[in-house]
């Protein structure tokens, strides 16, 4: 995987279809990830020369139907298991209510800790310490880029903007947890906050626990 390959990864594809980036010759470890993490994982792989890790991504839109995540993970593990000595699931709980943790334990594979990507990007311990943030709505780099496909349209706000306050009326602020320092993304995130009628806060996180967890496999 080269820098050019990373650039070629299309967010819409990652949202809708996912991406199988495994090659003909399998590496030692398979990273089985949410499509929403593809850019970040590839960037970490490239920066650290982690060529012993392959990446395959499930469609990020599975998050719109969390009850489908566990089955999709199991299916992917079954498909790839024979080719790899280890599979590392790059999902947090992601709304599965503990079922993904139970499934990974049953399959004997590791997964990321934490409730969501916006938690492990900040660092699960730091995120959990924000007791005053129950009215915060979080976006990562991927979610900022895919805001319309992932949030605005599936919630029907493109067709029925009057529903906005039914969804977001109890929120007070949008927190953009940035993995990269990118002024264009920041401007986009500010626009999203405005559309949702929320205050805006910028918080640079980098790759947080994702980097630390992948480094353990180096």
């Amino acid at each position, binding site marked *: 995987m080269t820098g050019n390959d990373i650039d070629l990864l299309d967010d819409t594809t990652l949202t809708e279809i996912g991406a199988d980036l495994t090659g003909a010759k399998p590496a030692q470890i398979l990273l089985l990830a949410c499509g929403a993490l593809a850019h970040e994982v590839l960037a970490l792989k490239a920066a650290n020369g982690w060529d012993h890790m392959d990446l395959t991504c499930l469609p990020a839109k599975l998050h719109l139907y969390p009850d489908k995540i566990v089955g999709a993970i199991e299916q992917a593990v079954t498909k790839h298991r024979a080719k790899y000595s280890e599979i590392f699931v790059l999902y947090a709980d992601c709304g*599965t*209510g*503990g*079922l993904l943790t139970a499934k990974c334990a049953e399959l004997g594979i590791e997964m990321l800790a934490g409730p969501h990507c916006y938690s492990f990007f900040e660092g699960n311990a730091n995120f959990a310490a924000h007791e005053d943030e129950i009215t915060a709505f979080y976006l990562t780099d991927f979610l900022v880029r895919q805001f319309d496909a992932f949030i605005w349209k599936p919630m*029907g706000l493109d067709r*029925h903007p009057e*529903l906005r306050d*039914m969804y977001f009326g109890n929120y007070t602020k949008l927190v953009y947890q940035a993995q990269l320092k990118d002024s264009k993304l920041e401007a986009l995130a500010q626009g999203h906050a405005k559309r949702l009628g929320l205050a805006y806060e910028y918080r640079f996180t980098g790759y947080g626990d994702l980097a630390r967890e992948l480094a353990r496999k180096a």
Partner: protein
Amino acid sequence: MSDDQDEIILAELDDEELTLQMHDDLYDGLKEEIEESVHILLGRGWMPYEVLTKALVEGMRIVGIDFRDGILFVPEVLLAANAMKAGMFILKPLLAETGAPRMGRMVIGTVKGDIHDIGKNLVTMMMEGAGFEVKDLGINNPVDNYLEALVAEDADILGMSALLTTTMPYMKVVIDTMIEKGMRDDYVVMVGGAPLNEEFAKAVGADAYCRDAAVAVETAKAFMLKKHNSVSA
């Protein structure tokens, strides 16, 4: 559902046609049409309870089935709920005046640390539609809010909702406190929310997990019938 809404004059439909049209209009989230139809049926001498159950609740039941089956999605359900809410707004004071069967009393709220209330609000509406008196505690409720309301309202049922994996364990805090205070067996405890499941409900000691508003209503009715039978026996 219908493509020719503009050509239909609601007042010209007979009762059966109008009721079916209301099911369609609820499905399509047409608030004004629902309000107009409710007034028409009341004007024709329908009892408010009849309008509620035959037109609104039945219409939402159909919406609920199609939501469960993946034909409708959350935005459409919310629009339908808004339309039903508008109809209930007209009927509620009339129901109080004319009397309607009382199924039981429920206290409901989203747990501490959680501000999500769409599912809870749908359950509240459908429970009210089914004849339950519901005290809605809103969002972010600590254990004391639930316990005080259960006593104050002389409730039969406690409903707790959570959308977050991080907040759903709080349901166990509430149920454990009920056990400590010796009041657990006085109430039916129903739980719901996107990340919940049957196993979780059992693990925290709830009586039932309700995957959607329709299931919540059916579950509550079944528990009330059981309670009624055990009292009569």
